[in-house]
């Protein structure tokens, strides 16, 4: 099965590990991702002002281009890209005025027929958790993993239609399927502070400390996410938090696809595990 794929800017540089492990894992599960021939940044954030059409132009162009490929779907793994593509698609589908404006500007005739999908959905719905259980031959038994969704994947539920916005479980189901142990904690849909890393650093430090402490208090040994900005904030901030609070316990922050790739016994060096601030390899080598 081949599906068009939109990697997103960050996955071509800073989050290459997410790109490589997504392609690698899905290939091992029989799904080939074919990158769109030409794409730009999706815009990263959905414009919340009703009169801001220009903020949707890039995502609309990407969707219109995806409609020219076969498959009717567009896979994207970065939570921001997924959020923007899905919401802009929702607008084009349901808001005729916006649809006309965007199409007039782009000189396209796109009506929202593409379905943006996330690899978590592909794992559950297209591949199936049983098939994954079978193919995940590496023994991850005893590895305690906390799943972190953040904000962009699940909210707003009416448009994202992804999973329960207060208590999503799709990542946990995958973790169980590959044989690791799920750790329940309270902060899995809390925001990490997002782009405030550039404006209000303290906010991000505070949020990250809350989220990580909550997970480690429940015994988590690793956190997984699908968002490169969550990954960065949760990972990079730990050294700074440790400097302020000597009792702070560091914890590796991985992409869920890296863990999946590990379980599917992809070559470790293909997963980008060496690119994290808190090195996950000592933990995973034993796994």
């Amino acid at each position, binding site marked *: 099965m081949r599906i068009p794929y939109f990697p*997103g*800017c*960050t996955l071509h*540089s*800073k*989050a290459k590990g997410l790109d490589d492990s997504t392609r690698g894992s899905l290939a091992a599960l029989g799904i080939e991702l074919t990158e769109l021939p030409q794409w730009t*940044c999706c*815009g*990263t*954030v959905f*414009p*919340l*002002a*009703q*009169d*801001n059409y220009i*903020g949707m132009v890039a995502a609309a162009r990407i969707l219109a281009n995806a409609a020219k490929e076969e498959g009717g779907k567009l896979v994207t793994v*970065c939570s*921001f890209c997924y959020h923007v593509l899905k919401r802009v698609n929702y607008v084009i589908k349901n808001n005729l005025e916006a649809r006309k404006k965007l199409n007039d500007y782009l000189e396209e005739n796109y009506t929202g027929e593409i379905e943006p999908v996330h690899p978590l959905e592909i794992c559950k719905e297209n591949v199936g958790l049983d098939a994954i259980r079978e193919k995940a031959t590496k023994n991850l038994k005893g590895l305690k993993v906390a799943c972190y969704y*953040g*904000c962009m994947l699940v*909210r*707003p*539920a009416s448009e994202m239609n992804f999973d329960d*916005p*207060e208590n999503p479980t799709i990542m946990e189901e995958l973790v169980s399927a590959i044989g690791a142990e799920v750790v329940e904690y309270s902060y899995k*849909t*809390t*925001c990490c*502070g*997002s*782009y*405030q*890393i*550039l*404006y*209000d650093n*303290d*906010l991000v430090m*505070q*949020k990250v400390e809350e989220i990580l402490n909550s997970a480690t208090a429940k015994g988590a040994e690793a956190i997984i996410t699908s968002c*490169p*900005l969550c990954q*960065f904030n949760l990972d*990079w901030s730990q050294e700074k938090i440790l400097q302020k609070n000597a009792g702070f316990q560091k914890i590796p922050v991985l992409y869920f696809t890296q863990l999946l790739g590990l379980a599917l016994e992809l070559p470790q060096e293909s997963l980008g595990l060496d690119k994290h601030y808190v090195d996950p390899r000592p933990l995973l080598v034993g796994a």
Partner: protein
Amino acid sequence: MAKDLSSKISRDLIEHIKEISGQNANLCMQCGTCSASCTGREIMDFSPRMVMRMIQLGNSKALNLKSMWVCSTCLICTARCPRGIDIARLMEALRVINLRQGREVLVAEKIPLELLTEVPQMALTSGFRKLSA
């Protein structure tokens, strides 16, 4: 407050915010669920509930708060509002009114080099879109 309520400026402000956000702040019943959930609540000068009240009253000070800039548009307020108000859109309207007049808080030249060269570029793109004019 009574003066603010009757002034033309404040009525215009309410209308302007309504138009940009597509939301009716008057639906808010001041329960405070948004404030209790808010990501930035501890850093904000006025909690989301208070900002909502200021918009209801047409208090133009709502345009000069730190709160709207600290908002990370995580949408948890929107998701939990029992009155179905998309509070994040109201916060965005306050930002957008400022940004369209050139008032911004994220200035490219002032981002520390350590962050500028380390953060994933999506942080810059999203930060610029939400916080720079």
